[in-house]
């Protein structure tokens, strides 16, 4: 049955029928990206140029509030003015508009080449909700009574995620996946501390194909990180886990399916082994898109888990900005959660600041409300059945693309002894590289010429010459076919005229970027100041 809401949520319905038909598509061989030769904004600095001229404060106000600076403690005041570029408003506008045309944004390209990132459509109608003053103009310090609607949205989204995962309570405070993982590790640490085992249990176990933040967050909290490697079937080895656990095990942080797209069907055995050793289990559900309504963290016996609202639940990715790592725990661990939690007594929504073992805050207030609102609207438009359909279509799309890629010369799936995948695949160009000398990075560069993005940065390269494709439920068959045509053309070129691929891209903004300085502490510079300093040093 046609459901307009579902359609607007980014699933293309009747997918099974569409998949069997030939699609109409055209590979954009004449694509060309805008190239503005735009300077860095610091280079546009003109002393005295201003974007906004702020009027002098009236005498009366000045007398009432003072100069605004003397109230700041002496040692917190900076001695010199910040060296910010002085640029007029109109030049700033043009500068950033030009830069925006240098990107291959999610709304421009067929963004399935960013495997592990779950690039799906973020329905535009949801923007009208988050931009409405009812959402945009409220403040987190407002009295609870005046934001009942916002609290209701948060509470209800929490209950949806409880149903999806089987956990008992959710918080939206973590501002991203890594922050949610940090909360999981913090809860694990606090739990063992309160049991008097904080010192002894100093090891966290994870796997090489789990989200790298699982290892990083554990290290930040002072844990020794023990990483498991896959066996020949691409699954973390049970024998290795048995070797890893001991009375020093604090917990397990694991993704499933891992970034290979392979589902670990022994996951219950994993949680059991860790629980038997006295550790806790945290489920990194960054790869949940193929499992919605199908498997749950509870049945796999996890103590806690998180979802990325900016991946699986359609809110846009944020580069550390408007993301949300929705974190859920079992009943036993609710007291450990970050505060405040949104509660409902049947009449009124309120904020609970009274959690005896709370690990504290990982971010101000109670979360990125626009991300929560988008996810809420998205789930409401789909309903339970629709969510399951999201997962099924994501898996179907992935199977279709996987079959087509396996037909390409020189391409293969990693760990072929396990043929099945969930929502994404970690592939390898190893054969193609051996045959032609063309590497995965070269192919990445060539695909840019067709307006596509392929992400090869899957370090460490446990799988040689890697690339990952995650088609999600959002892309039409015509788009998948267009992307596949780009891959096919590139592969043919690699075998017939490898230099053509190696010298690509031809139609992009910057034709070749040398990545080596990014590897070298002597050379890398992520700020203008560091750039000037290191450039001077290098001369």
């Amino acid at each position: 049955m046609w459901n307009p809401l579902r359609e607007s949520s980014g699933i293309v319905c009747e997918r099974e029928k569409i998949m069997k038909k030939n699609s109409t598509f055209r590979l954009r061989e004449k694509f060309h990206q805008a190239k503005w030769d735009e300077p860095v904004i610091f280079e546009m600095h003109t002393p005295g140029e201003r974007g906004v001229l702020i009027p002098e404060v009236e005498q009366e106000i000045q007398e009432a509030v003072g100069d605004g600076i003397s109230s700041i403690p002496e040692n917190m005041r900076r001695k010199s003015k910040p060296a910010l570029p002085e640029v007029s408003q109109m030049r700033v506008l043009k500068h950033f508009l030009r830069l925006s045309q240098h990107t291959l944004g999610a709304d421009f390209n067929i963004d399935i080449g960013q495997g592990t990132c779950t690039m799906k459509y973020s329905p535009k109608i949801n923007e009208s909700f988050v931009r409405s003053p009812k959402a945009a103009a409220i403040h987190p310090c407002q009295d609870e009574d005046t934001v009942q609607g916002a609290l209701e949205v948060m509470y209800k989204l929490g209950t949806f995620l409880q149903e999806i995962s089987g956990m008992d309570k959710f918080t939206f405070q973590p501002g991203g996946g890594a922050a949610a993982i940090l909360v999981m590790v913090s809860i694990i640490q606090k739990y063992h501390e309160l049991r008097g085992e904080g010192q002894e249990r100093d090891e966290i176990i994870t796997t090489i194909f789990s989200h790298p933040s699982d290892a990083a967050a554990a290290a930040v909290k002072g844990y020794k990180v023990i990483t498991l490697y896959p066996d020949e079937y691409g699954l973390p080895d049970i024998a290795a886990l048995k070797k890893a656990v001991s009375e020093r095990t604090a917990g397990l942080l694991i993704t499933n399916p891992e970034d290979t797209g392979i589902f670990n069907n022994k996951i219950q055995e994993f949680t059991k082994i860790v629980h038997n050793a006295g550790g806790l289990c945290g489920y990194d559900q960054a790869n949940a898109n193929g499992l919605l309504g199908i498997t749950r963290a509870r049945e796999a016996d996890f103590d806690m888990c998180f979802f990325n609202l900016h991946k699986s639940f359609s809110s846009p990715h944020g580069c550390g900005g408007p993301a949300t790592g929705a974190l859920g725990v079992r009943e036993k661990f609710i007291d450990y959660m970050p505060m405040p939690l949104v509660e409902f007594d049947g009449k009124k929504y309120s904020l609970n600041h009274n959690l005896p073992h709370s690990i504290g805050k990982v971010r101000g207030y109670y979360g990125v409300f626009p991300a929560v609102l988008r996810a809420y609207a998205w789930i409401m438009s789909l309903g339970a059945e629709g969510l399951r359909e999201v997962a099924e279509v994501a898996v179907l799309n992935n199977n279709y693309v996987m079959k087509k890629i396996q037909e390409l010369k020189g391409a293969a799936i990693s760990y072929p002894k396990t043929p099945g995948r969930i929502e994404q695949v970690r592939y390898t160009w190893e054969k193609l590289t051996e045959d032609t000398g063309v590497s995965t990075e070269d192919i990445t560069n060539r695909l840019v010429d067709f307006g596509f993005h392929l992400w090869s940065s899957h370090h460490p390269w446990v799988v040689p010459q890697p690339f990952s494709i995650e088609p999600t439920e959002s892309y039409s068959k015509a788009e998948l076919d267009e992307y596949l045509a780009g891959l096919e053309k590139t592969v043919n070129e690699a075998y017939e005229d490898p230099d053509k691929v190696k010298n690509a891209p031809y139609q992009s903004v910057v034709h070749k970027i040398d990545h080596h300085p990014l590897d070298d502490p002597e050379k890398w510079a992520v700020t203008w100041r560091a750039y000037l300093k290191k450039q001077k040093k290098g001369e």
Partner: protein
Amino acid sequence: MGRYVAGLSEEAEKGRVKRALKRKKLGFLVNPIAGMGGRVGLKGTDGREILQKAIELGAQPWAKERAREALKPLLRLMDEIELVTYPSLMGEDIAREYGFIPKVIEADLGDVTTEKDTKRAAKAMLDEKVDLLLFAGGDGTARDICSAVGTSLVCLGIPAGVKIHSGVFASHPVRAGELAALYLQKSVQRTMEAEVMDVNEEELRREIVSARLYGYLRIPNVERFLQRTKAGSTGNEKYSQEAIAAEVVEDMSDEFYYLVGPGTTTSAIMQRLGLDHSLLGVDLVWQSDLLGKDLNEAQILKKISGKPTKLILTPIGGQGFLLGRGNQQISPEVINQIGKDNIIVVSTKQKIHSFHSRSLLVDTGDSALDQTLSGHYRIITGFREAIIYKVSFL
């Protein structure tokens, strides 16, 4: 290149690169007989008789093809580098074929070149003060260059031999050329020491594998280009080794003797302890003191007799041998005395990833012991970091 973020205009950038390239010298050396044994089923071409046999079996010069491929990415720098090479088949021919006007070092070569020519050529390159020596060959060629120049010259191998166990080769000839270009353009400036492995061909033909760690060559440090680590770049190997050393030293106990196997990773541990040590041999440490350096099997057995001892090992060579290649002093008797539980395995993650999920290997010569030694090990990969990894036997 120098465009960290953006900034320099294209012109300024080109000018800067050009200036930087001034006087850059590339040494280019081909071992013309390397690799001839491979296609005719021989294990290598070390020695005149084998070479004769290879030629009789119809072997074709293969190193030339490989070296030719490697020069291609350097063509665009033709006007900006000085190519220094050896006469005729040892480099000159290919260079001229591509239009280079090379500086050719004078040498009298026989109709068949030998290891002496390779060594002499490498020395001459050192005298010429080349910035980088790009050579085409196999393990034997690397060994000859290593014996001639050690780590005093930055080198890079074009894989063209039958045996490529050493870590000094790029993963593909084209990659060797690309990496050489990056190094000469100063895009890559870091270097690292990489293993030169030497498998005895005679014994290999009799199906006995006896490899040893011959020494180290200095190579440009970009892991994704290299043969031994196709693992993508994950940072600086040296820092990883220092982190591993910190972890191991922190956990050292006064009650144990520590037998430290060969390798640069284990040698970082000795450096952290401030001890003199042998890079290629086995050393013994107790309470941060050196009890013995470069010990042979008998010396080891005598010194550790009756003492609780821990053995620190790191995988050697591209195949990931933990025991039996490059550390045969650590014999089955030594291992039996120490006990499996007292083996500490260390490795940089970069090296582990280069094995692409393949097990590490043991081949002690005692198959029952090999079987006992196989299984999962905790491998120290950094400060407060470990992995669980499988070890198998042949």
